[in-house]
């Protein structure tokens, strides 16, 4: 025996089917317009979790990039400061060579001493340079403001050695160890204490200002002075090279960060974005389904035996 179709139930079922097809159509449209396959976690819990992790990686890349910019900004300025210092050291070297000129009088040497004093003061200013935002380029792991100060015993470094690092995808330096760079150049004479840029210049200036020194004494000042100036200049140059290679490393890190970010973006998109071609095809399918449901409803509901019974 076939099942009896209850008229009221048949209407109810048809209406229910129409509603659910309409709902499917609306969902497909919603997905198409948002461009997302996963709008809530239940659409695909695994993909939602994947997208969540990918988003965290994206945001992390942005933070890493900001830290990298901070480091690069400071390191670029440090590199340029050390470049300036290198030029000044070159000028100082020439002044020291000139001081060895046998025809120079005490007053000529005093003039050279004055110009060396000028160079020395400029170098001190460079050593105390900031990045323009309050960070001392040669601030190490923390300094007083400013890190290098003149004292009766010469220029001293008031700060902690080492470097301050920032957390990018690797640690990057925010400062350079000022004491090491300016005050701790290896002495060309083995076993002698490390050399300070400022003590070296102060020593030469003091000698040149001293009147009535003999030719040998002056020669000794010039030769020791030259070798010491070269030693501290080499130390500054080494620091500049380090800054340059840090900048190179920063550039490659930046590439790496943007690659990571791109990978995370792709991951997120793969996890939650809609395949448009598929979605449009699904939408059209659902549209035809709904259309067919409407048409059959209209046709079937017209069929009734009562229609064929004339009064």
């Amino acid at each position, binding site marked *: 025996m076939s099942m009896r179709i*209850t*008229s009221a139930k048949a209407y109810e079922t048809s209406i229910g089917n129409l509603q659910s097809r309409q709902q499917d159509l609306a969902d497909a449209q919603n997905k198409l317009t948002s461009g997302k396959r996963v709008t809530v*976690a*239940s659409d695909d819990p695994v993909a939602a979790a994947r997208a969540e992790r990918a988003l965290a990686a994206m945001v992390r890349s942005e933070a890493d990039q900001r*830290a990298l910019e*901070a480091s690069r900004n400071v390191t670029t300025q440090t590199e340029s400061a050390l470049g300036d210092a290198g030029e000044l050291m070159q000028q100082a070297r020439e002044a020291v060579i000139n001081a060895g000129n046998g025809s120079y009088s005490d007053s000529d040497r005093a003039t050279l001493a004055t110009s060396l004093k000028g160079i020395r003061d400029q170098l001190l200013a460079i050593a105390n340079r900031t990045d323009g935002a309050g960070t001392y380029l040669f601030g190490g792991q*923390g300094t007083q403001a400013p890190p290098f100060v003149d004292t009766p015993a010469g220029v001293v470094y008031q700060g902690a050695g080492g470097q301050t690092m920032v957390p990018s995808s690797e*640690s990057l330096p925010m400062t350079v160890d000022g004491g090491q760079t300016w005050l701790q150049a290896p002495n060309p004479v083995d076993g002698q204490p490390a050399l300070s840029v400022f003590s070296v210049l102060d020593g030469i200036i003091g000698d040149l200002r001293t009147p009535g020194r003999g030719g040998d004494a002056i020669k000794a000042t010039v030769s020791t002075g030259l070798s010491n100036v070269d030693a501290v200049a080499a130390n500054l140059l080494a620091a500049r090279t380090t800054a340059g290679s840090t900048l190179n490393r920063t550039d490659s890190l930046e590439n790496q960060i943007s690659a990571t970010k791109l990978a995370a973006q792709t991951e997120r998109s793969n996890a939650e974005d809609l395949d448009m071609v598929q979605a449009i095809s699904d939408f059209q399918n659902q549209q035809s389904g709904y259309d067919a449901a409407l048409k059959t409803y209209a046709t079937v509901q017209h069929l009734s*035996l009562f229609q064929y019974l004339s009064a």
Partner: protein
Amino acid sequence: MGASPLMSIGLRAMAASYASMQTTSHNIANASVAGYSRQEAQLATSAGQYTGAGFFGKGVDVTTVTRAHDEFLTRAAATATSLSAMDAARQDRLSQLESVFPTGEGGLGYTVNQFLNSMSDLASRPGDSATRQTVLANAQNVATMFNSASNQLDSIQAGVSSDLRTSVSQVNGLANSIAQVNQQIAALNGLGQAPNDLLDQRDQLINQLSSLVQVSTVPADDGSLGVFISGGQRLVLGNQAAQLQVTQDADDPSRSAIALNDNGTLRQMDSGTLGGGSIAGLLRFQNDDLVQGRNLIGQLAAAVGSAVNQQQMLGVSLQQPLGGVASKPLFAIGAPQAVPATTNTKDGSGAYVASVALTVTDASALTAANYELRADPGGADGVYQLTRLSTPPLVMSIASGDVVDGMRIDISDPPPSATDRFLLKPVAQAAAGMAALLQDPRDLAAASPLTATATSTNTGTAAIASLTMNSLPPEAAGTAQISFTGDSGDYTWQLVDDDNNVLSSGTGTWQAGQPIPTPPDDINGFSLNLAGVPRDGDTLTVAPTQAAYIATNNGNALALTSLRDAALVGKATLADGSTSGGVTATDAYASALADIGVRVQTANTAAKTSAAMASQAGDAASAVSGVNLDEEAARLIQFQQSYQAAAKVLQIAQSIFETLLQTTSS
């Protein structure tokens, strides 16, 4: 033999056809009435009249009017409706719960990440007040997001309670109606004929009731129907209906429960035995899904908040005098709760005799579960049974003061009685109570209390990679000197005070990738990691960070930044009390999201399946009892023709009678 039997047969046949047409019309009239069962006039052949020439039929009788009805299918449809309504109610609420766990930029995971990432900016500019302000704003944002998630959960709970009240008043209304119909049916019971329309009405009421709460029925001799819920609790008996009531859950007054009012005594129903119905769906959602959702959020709030607080308090803020002010926590976190059951023993003044106190000892080991505490079932003194209400539940035996899953449980003296119960909720209120405490940007502790330096004359390549604080330095003014005594990493260390007096000393061996000192050894609370390799004679110094350097020191900001990668949520507690595992905040949110997503997905499938089953069961029942208008139209014609034929019989009978009259008169 005259014309009268013929006339009588014709008349009865007309009456029978008319009765059939009447029931058919009744069917057509009620075709759209929910719960109506198709009726049929039952006809029977009248017993024959004996004559010498055999039995002569006397026509047809209408014996009764029956309704097309299958008791089994009707009950099956009602049960299927119950299950479908339960699944639909839970699905409906779960999709609300899902909105508390949004994906992407609107989610808690993203907000927590933004906050921890801003610590990286703080590390780049530890002294900058604008950066500090951004960090505080992000911290505020974290607290606000947790609060609003908690508020949403509260309003979902309020919605559940209000729905329960509405459902319960519907149940009570339906139960009363069933009792009344029972009474009417019982009154008509003596007539010997089934009151079809009343029976339909009662079935329909039971069907409506089933969508709210699953019922079982037992018919009585007087025709009334007993209606029972929750595995045998009487809801309707004869013409008496009991009343349901919404009460506070005895175990957790923040939740609603259903109780049966039995002559003034409230008996709470176990939500597990309710079976189906939307009420059961709501209770299941409330007692399982909502609790889980709240605990997942609370666990994340407690773990992230505590980890940040702990690290912040190991650092040094910019408050004056620099280095001389203890750092304040960044977040307030809602406290754990130990809720006594309302049935627990009370003293004369109505206060509970026993109490339980919870203290969080390690927020990273807290679980997203509630616990039930009761006296030892064996009656042992000082021993309690603690059940972690997870899936599956975990039963433990504990004593007062024990630490379980990151919380210490202190039980009062006098102890709880044998029947007392406590519901422990370590994280349920963590998100609700979360607040960002710092207003002054200087309060952020970006600096480390200690600074490590490698001596400039070292010959090895070792540089300081990182210095992390395990605790605040026990010797605030102590300086640690570490001297390598060989190329294989052996070192001696000593901790000296301001005047170079040695406070403590020791030896150790550094290994690549391992910190100095090797855990669990401790030198003034720090842990030092090297990059490169030290040589014999190299020295390292770990000294207090000078006040003047604090503004430029970012040691603690680096440590706060590294919380991004720290497994700070849901560590497992091992047998020896240590913890292991755990996930990052990002992973914790991602898996919370997936957990709720899977629940919604499962509920969607369950709702779809049970709706299809309910619809099928409904179809099966209505195939028996429903009205098909085409069928009724056909029957109408059939009975019309019968009526016409019967009328013809009458006409012929009359004609015979007239023939007889004419014959006799002529």
